[in-house]
């Protein structure tokens, strides 16, 4: 009887779930295995499944012979800059949307939603000419501004939903106690919204880190982020899959871990607000 139940659960739950998980992580796991197999061995014998065939060759080459760490530094600067710009201008906007009913509220909220929907190709060409005119091509600022086109609307919507979840009575109580509006925002709402602000910031960090098209178009030899750099690992004459896979693993790991940390809280905000994934 009991074995029957177990068998049934194995067939209806454990095995199907394992298959879905395999689909989800299989390709990435394959890349990790590839990165651990020395390049010559990949061509000769294929990717090694057992630790006996593994080595750190690709990683040594990646960190020793290429400027990959430097690229990660550029990505870090761009991503942190985007987080700062995105959050600073969005927090007050979110507070205004969630606490006031004013003329033009709908139109302004719509504006931020609309911005998020526009195709990146429509923006990438004029941003390129704009940055060229301002002499900003190949600078961190250019990439921060470009990433902010996505980050600001996203942050406004996410934070509006987080701040909206904080009861209005709390700011009112603070104001009866003598706080001004802005003091209530700073002393009451901000601390309570902090978890939401942090996860929004982390999500912006992840998307900026992962961004590719702007980095490719507006960056250059001085500012080359990880995503652009990974492509250059591909090699001139022959594709170096081992090195490439190592770059992919190192470049993706920091944000993957961050993502796993915030995903739960993020889903709440995503299902309430309506934002780009």
């Amino acid at each position, binding site marked *: 009887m009991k074995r029957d139940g177990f068998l049934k659960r194995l067939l209806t*739950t454990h095995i199907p*779930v394992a298959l*879905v*998980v395999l*689909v*989800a992580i299989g*390709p*990435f796991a394959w*890349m990790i295995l590839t990165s651990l197999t020395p390049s010559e061995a*990949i061509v000769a014998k*294929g990717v090694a499944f057992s630790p006996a065939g593994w080595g750190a060759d690709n990683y040594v080459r990646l960190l020793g012979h290429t400027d990959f760490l430097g690229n990660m530094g550029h990505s870090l600067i761009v991503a942190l800059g985007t987080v700062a710009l995105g959050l600073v*201008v*969005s927090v*007050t*906007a979110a507070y*205004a*949307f969630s*606490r*006031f009913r*004013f003329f033009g509220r709908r139109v*302004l*909220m719509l504006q931020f*939603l609309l911005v998020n*929907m*526009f*195709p*990146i*190709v*429509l923006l*990438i*060409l004029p*941003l390129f*000419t704009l940055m060229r005119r301002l002499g900003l091509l190949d600078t961190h600022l250019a990439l921060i501004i*470009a990433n902010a*086109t996505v980050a*600001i609307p996203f942050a*406004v919507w996410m934070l509006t939903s987080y701040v909206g979840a904080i009861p209005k009575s709390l700011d009112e109580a603070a104001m009866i106690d003598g706080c001004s509006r802005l003091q209530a925002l700073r002393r009451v709402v901000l601390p309570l919204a902090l978890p939401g602000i942090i996860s929004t910031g982390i999500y912006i960090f992840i998307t900026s880190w*992962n961004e*590719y*098209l702007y980095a490719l178009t507006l960056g250059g030899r001085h500012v080359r982020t990880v995503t*652009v750099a*990974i*492509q250059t690992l591909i090699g001139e004459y022959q*594709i170096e*899959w081992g090195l490439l*896979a190592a770059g*992919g693993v190192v*470049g*993706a790991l920091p*944000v*993957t871990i*961050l*993502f796993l940390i915030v*995903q739960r809280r993020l*889903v*709440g905000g*995503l*299902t309430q607000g*309506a934002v780009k*994934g």
Partner: protein
Amino acid sequence: MSSIDDVMALEAPRPPRRRRLRRSAFLPYALLTPAVIVTLIIVFAPMVEALVTSFYDYVLFRPNAAKFVGFANFVKLFNDPVFWTSLWQTALWIGLTLPLQMSLGLIAALLLNKEFAWRGIARALVIIPWALPSVVIALMWRWIYDPNIGILNDLLLRLDIIRAAVPWLASPDVALYAVIATLTWQGFPFFAVMILAGLQGIPKSQYEAAAIDGASAWRQFRHITLPGIAPILATAGLLRTIWVANSIDVIFVMTGGGPGYSTYTLPLFAFVKARQNLDFGYGSAIAVTFTVILGAVVAVYIARTMREVER
């Protein structure tokens, strides 16, 4: 306890209150100013410039030769067979990717909604494709699809499903589908996570009542689960239509649009035109046309969301 002070607070500020009212009527606009100004400068102004550029003959390395040509770029576009190919492939791209992402996401969500010991780990692992950078995904799948030593051919040959190695990304007939498979893989965790959140909002009591009434698993799914997650499916579906339509980074890195034009979508066409030929006038015209077409979907989505905001 708090009587006299409260009464004073309520009674006293009659005259200042009006001033406060006026200040508070102004305050939301002040709070919004930074965000609005920044988006005006970095989004709306460039967008207007793109629109203007689409009416010019503007090639980047000949900036002084830029001249106003009216609708010439659009006329050229509608006579360009590549445009119609790209348009058809964009429809195919969205029409296949979206349902595939949604069904795979639904299956994953239904499974992950069951109770089992390693549910937490399974949920975390399933969303990994969502977190990975598009470039990494694209390169990873190029490696999987590699015609000579890629694992997909290897696997299929061993299982006797195919007789000879398939050049997945180099053959015009299968390249688009190969990229669609990759994008499906990248996008299904988003649906899984959204649908899972919807499933958890359906009260258990409904299933219990249905079970008592003798409803089969399929009928429970049709009459309780599906209606319960319908709003989320609609919102997530619209959102992803826009996202899938716009996403060109994966295609760009995997095939660059090739072989030939077989994996061109409209936004990719615009990007490649501008990037390789530096033809910003024509590129902008393609981008504007694509935006107008996508605008229809966006309008539906926004109407929906704004309705929810009002509630």
